[in-house]
């Protein structure tokens, strides 16, 4: 009895999406809005999705975007965590680097693009560097905050128990800062995709962003929509992925501490 009600409710839950898709299909087919060329029906978009996948265009562009995000995000995060740990741990480092970082932090990652186009030139390093910058600053900030917010009591307890400073850093401080570090990573996971497509739209000839601009110039709304679907799925996946990793690594003890 209860099961059935639940099933019925979850069926009702996707009803709005079904209606949405049906409306899309209808408006597209009837050419009610902007004409069928500018507003292709859902089925046409799906067909194009299949077509782009089959001929490898989507896969190729997707892979180059994915590679850039992975390399940029990974290197930016590692560097960010390292600098953040040092800043959080050593007050001198914080005093020296803190003001400069809070000066550079608010510059929109994309604002660096024209500068980097001139400094680096238009090549694979460009999008990777942009993503590096986009992930580096928030991760530094969150890591340093996390490290600094570790309760001094835990450090003192470890000291009286005889632990060396290095042991305290790796066994106490960093583990306890993980929830904060993950906050930074989770934020950047989705953001890096957003910044990447912007960079690809402006300056890079390959990747999902470039495909979007190419589709625009060819007036192929169906391809644009396929790209958007892929993008929103990747943004979601990356954010959920980090959330999952966080739950795995700190879920057992965090949020209760």
């Amino acid at each position, binding site marked *: 009895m209860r099961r059935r009600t639940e099933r019925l409710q979850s069926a009702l839950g996707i009803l709005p999406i079904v209606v949405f898709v049906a409306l899309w299909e209808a408006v597209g087919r009837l050419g009610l809005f902007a004409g069928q060329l500018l507003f292709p029906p859902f089925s046409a978009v799906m067909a194009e999705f299949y077509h782009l996948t089959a001929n490898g265009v989507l896969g190729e562009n997707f892979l180059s975007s994915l590679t850039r995000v992975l390399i940029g995000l990974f290197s930016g995060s590692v560097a960010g965590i390292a600098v953040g740990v040092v800043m959080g741990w050593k007050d001198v480092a914080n005093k020296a680097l803190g003001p400069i970082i809070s000066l550079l932090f608010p510059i929109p990652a994309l604002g660096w693009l024209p500068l980097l186009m001139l400094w680096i030139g238009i090549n694979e390093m460009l999008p990777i560097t942009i993503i590096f910058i986009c992930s580096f600053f928030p991760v530094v900030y969150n890591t340093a905050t996390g490290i600094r917010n570790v*309760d001094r*009591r*835990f450090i*003192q*307890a*470890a*000291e*009286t*128990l*005889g*632990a*060396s400073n290095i*042991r305290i850093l790796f*066994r*106490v401080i960093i*583990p*306890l800062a993980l929830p904060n570090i993950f906050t930074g990573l989770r934020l950047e996971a989705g953001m890096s995709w957003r910044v990447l497509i912007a960079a690809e739209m402006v300056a890079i000839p390959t990747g999902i962003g470039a495909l979007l601009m190419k589709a625009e110039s060819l007036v192929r709304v169906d391809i644009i929509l396929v790209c958007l679907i892929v993008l929103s799925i990747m943004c979601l996946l990356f954010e959920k992925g980090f959330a999952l990793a966080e739950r795995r690594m*700190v879920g*057992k*003890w*965090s949020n*209760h*501490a």
Partner: protein
Amino acid sequence: MPEIRLLKVSKHICRDVDLTIRDGEVFVVVGTTGAGKTTLLNVIAGVTDYKGKVLIDGVDVNGVPPQKRGVGYLFQGLALFPHLTTASNIAFGLHARGHNKRAVNDRVLTLMEMMRITHLSGRYPHMLSGGEKKRVALARSLAPSPNILLLDEPTSSLDHQTSKYLRSELLFLLKKLAVTTVYVTHDLREAEEIADRIAVMSKGKVEQVSTPRNLFFDPRNRSVAEFIGMPNIIECTGSRVLASGLVEVESGDLRILLPYDGNNLAKIAIHPEDIYLSDVRDPGPALNRFTGRVDEIIHQGATVRVKVSVDKMMLLTEMTQDAFEEIAIEQGKEVNVVIKMRRLRYVEA
């Protein structure tokens, strides 16, 4: 089980503290929040910098880092590592000192059995109750076999009964281990129960060091008297045992029933908070209930002190501001006065 000496120690609020803690004694430091009690423990443990000197068994340990002072420290709030299980928390200090895995496991097991927490071995701190956490933290601080044990409010945030039991267990444990113990608490009753000697701290100064009994009937100054709560010291004109463990004390026309075993009494101390006032007559039995008159009402922040006279005797009472506002009493008016039967502080005749 060494002797600890502090010479002209200054840190935060603490100014020029001199103190000698004797080899093997349970030395209790009492005082209100912010009196500098925890700072003193931090100085002895070496987890903070300070001015002055700390000697352990006559040896200056000023340059010695906390890792090498041989001190076990039960922190206020415990500071159990939230990301480690019970067993890993206890093992932390042993691993840090480079013991091999087998020796660590044996020692952790022994400690968990001693503290009766073996069944909690795999749990994280957030899965433990208040009393369980205390025992884990105690086991952790005892693991590296320290010579000195620093306990910061070890029974705080436990329910009354658990805290009472933990206290008697602690007392037993401390006597067995024979470590020198510095025990910090804000609770005077607790201090009296467990202390060999008590130090009263106030605003970073040690005001008095004495045995528990002396503190009560012979406070050295106003600040100590304030801390022990300005007890009403009542001279007894007679006393009569009513039943085993119960005595009726006479003072002028007043007769007060109190729990007590033993000889005749010369003086008793009654705490201002142990005297209830009320504007209506409670339905309960008239045990130690009198009628008095309000002489003076003194507001002191969150508490209110009311002086009442009962049969020519002046009694000081104290209650929270909240409680005060629930009753309608005014200067010069009559009130019902109830003296609660609590454990007695006394001087025998």
